[in-house]
């Protein structure tokens, strides 16, 4: 059973890293979701999510471990927002930075108790920030 309060992780900076959108992965992602790869070299916009998740320096399981939550216990993504300063480009290397925004424990009609996790990730290149994204997850805690 979880304690009454979630771990104090708001503001925790994630390790971060780099991510390069390869032509092969952009092509395969486009094909897999029914999109035509852009002939001018723009990446599918969903690489904002892929690049930030793959380059944040932690696996999803590792991120959830910071929240003292086991990925096997059924986390669910509930939302994601992104703001593009400019399009993402194939072949370009992006710096990924991120932090946990909040982790709040609240009663849940479905789960008894659940933690609401929000974390923010940015992708930047030599010209500055290209995309800022925020993801929200719910972490069921049962009878915490």
């Amino acid at each position, binding site marked *: 059973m979880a304690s009454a309060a979630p771990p104090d992780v708001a503001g925790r900076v994630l390790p971060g890293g780099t991510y390069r959108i390869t032509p092969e992965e952009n092509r395969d*992602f486009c094909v897999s979701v029914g999109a035509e790869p852009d002939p001018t070299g723009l990446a599918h*916009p969903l690489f904002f*999510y892929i690049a930030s998740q793959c380059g944040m320096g932690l696996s999803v399981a590792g991120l959830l471990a910071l929240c003292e939550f086991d990925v096997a216990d059924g986390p669910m993504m*509930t939302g*994601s927002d992104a703001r*593009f300063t*400019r399009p993402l480009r194939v072949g370009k290397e992006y710096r990924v930075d991120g932090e946990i925004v909040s982790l709040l424990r609240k009663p849940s009609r479905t789960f008894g108790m659940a933690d609401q996790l929000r974390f923010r990730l940015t992708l930047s290149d030599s010209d500055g920030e290209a995309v800022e994204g925020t993801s929200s997850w719910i972490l069921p805690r049962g009878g915490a």
Partner: protein
Amino acid sequence: MIEPFGWTVEPSAVSRVAEILRDPNPIHLDGDAARAAGLAGPINQGPANLAYAVNMVQAAFPGARLLTIESRYLANVLVGDRVTVEGSVVSQDGQVVTCAFRVINGAGQDAVTGTATLLLENESS
């Protein structure tokens, strides 16, 4: 109303997206594992579901630049589902258009809803 987007979620596509996401979670790939997790079967990845919505709005406004996308995940899309995305323009302020969308799973439920804003004037990046 924007021209809807339709797509059938094939297992091979889900497997490749799992590789690209570096996400080997078996609930996307293994029927037994998915059912053990209380799901009806393997489920599609959330980012793929959102990608269908992006495809629809980009097809509606060729050459436009995506500025923002806000999404809420409400239900799963099962592997094998025929997904439909519906949308409409909810506002336009100059060259900035805001569209609402809903990604509908094979059971007819809203799997993802949200809004996207696009800049109609194509700018070099």
